[in-house]
């Protein structure tokens, strides 16, 4: 195994994961460095969402190595993993209908003191401020997506795992989300994006992991995207 890189915030090696009896991940290897935006690309069922869920322990069982901010996470219960500095935005957004927008925002416990303040968050997402008293699930799809991202910015998590944030949203909102990701990168957040929408991900990300059959099939740097167009097309069949 390689020596851990000093700037490495996430290292996953030989990660296997199971839902019930079915073996979904077959030895995923990837690393993410501090301040990077990295995407997991691939077809449906290639194991991208499961990779995020396995990092958080939201699968039936898992094995291999996961290190987050230098701490081993594979044996930790789910509720301790967030405290290593991870914020998670699930694919279905996970907005709570019995909570108001503001209660949704304030729900995740602070894990470090250096998260964004509520004012900063409202500045970045003015819609949420306007609707802070509304029931969480009464927001539009785009606003719910903003809320799902916004609520993990307050906690002080430095590594954000964002699952399919552009799914089903109008192009104008997808563009806004692109700006949000750029701003978060400037602020020093490290972001792992699971994306279906390659055109959204391509200009944002520093590196791309292409997944197939529960493993990483290729890693492509931003600079090499042009040369690898064909490979990507083959894997994503776009």
């Amino acid at each position: 195994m390689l020596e851990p890189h000093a700037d490495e915030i996430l290292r996953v090696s030989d990660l296997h994961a199971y839902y019930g009896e079915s073996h979904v991940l077959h030895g995923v290897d990837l690393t993410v460095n501090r301040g990077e935006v990295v995407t997991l690309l691939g077809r449906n069922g290639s194991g991208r969402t499961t990779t995020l869920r396995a990092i958080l322990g939201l699968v039936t069982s898992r094995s291999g190595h996961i290190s987050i901010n230098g701490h081993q996470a594979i044996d930790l219960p789910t509720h301790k993993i967030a405290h290593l500095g991870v914020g998670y935005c699930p694919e279905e957004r996970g907005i709570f209908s019995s909570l108001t927008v503001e209660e949704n925002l304030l729900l995740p416990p602070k894990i470090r003191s250096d998260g964004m303040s509520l004012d900063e968050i409202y500045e970045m997402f003015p819609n949420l401020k306007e609707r802070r008293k509304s029931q969480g699930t009464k927001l539009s799809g785009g606003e719910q997506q903003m809320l799902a991202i916004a609520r993990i910015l307050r906690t002080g998590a430095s590594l954000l795992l964002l699952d399919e944030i552009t799914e089903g949203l109008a192009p104008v909102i997808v563009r806004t989300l692109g700006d949000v990701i750029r701003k978060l990168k400037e602020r020093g957040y490290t972001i792992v994006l699971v994306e279906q929408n390659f055109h959204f991900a391509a200009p944002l990300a520093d590196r791309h992991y292409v997944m197939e059959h529960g493993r990483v099939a290729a890693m492509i740097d931003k600079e090499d995207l042009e040369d690898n167009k064909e490979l990507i097309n083959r894997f994503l069949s776009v």
Partner: protein
Amino acid sequence: MAISANAILTQAMLGLNNGAFYAMLSLGLAVIFGLLNIVNFAHGAFYMLGAFVALIGLTQLGPWLGMPDLQINFWWALLIAPLVVGLLGILIERTLLRRLYGLDHLYGLLLTFGVALVLQGFFTNFYNTAGTPYPGKPEILDGVVNLGFMYFPKYRLFALVVSLLVCFATWYLIERTKLGAILRAGTEKPKLVEAFGVNVPLLITLTYGFGVALAAFAGVLAAPIYAVSPLMGADLIIVVFAVVVIGGMGSIMGAIVTGLALGMIEGVTKVVYPPAASTVVFLIMALVLLVRPAGLFGKE
């Protein structure tokens, strides 16, 4: 058939008094069902246990320990019984219920029904099922209060006011505080709340302990009114389940309002048409299930 308005008001008040107990018990059931997905059939047994902790603490604990002067009075029992019974609940959650999460509701129901039978059986061995009076009603609560339309026992009025305070404090805790927001979120999507770094297994244990403690508190409050009997909970729990079904599983305000309303309806039925007094709750339950299967305050 002339029924005086006074008689109706009197029965409504007494019914409201019973209703406050229904409310406190169904509240605990609703909170537990929301987060644990367990229909806590042992709830009545914990209510009974609360009353017995009060009775034993007052009349038997001292002699057992060789200190005949030691008596846990009513006020201390209100504090101690919920703690003791709540801890027992926590123990049961940790050792038994925990193994059932993720299984069908039926398993939790069967297990808690078994726990209820064991507890009742145990106390039936030592105590009269016809009931033992609780002799520790505080003197200050002796006598009656003139409510204008009736003379109402002071203690019953006290029990009613305290139950209402406890119900609304619980409502406030769950619907208006940060802790309550975590609890509501945990009820909806426990795995996601855990992924945010909340220790959900601990939250579940404490919630069960709290719900059970609430039942024990109601038991202590009930002890001076009703006789303390091993079956006092079993008698009550059936009506309380009807309350929860009518109000809608998992709705806090629903449990409180339905409990109070059904207590009153039951009381008034006692004057208007006495033979129906014990069935009216179930008639309403059947009607509600036909019209609104999720309950009056339930979602979906």
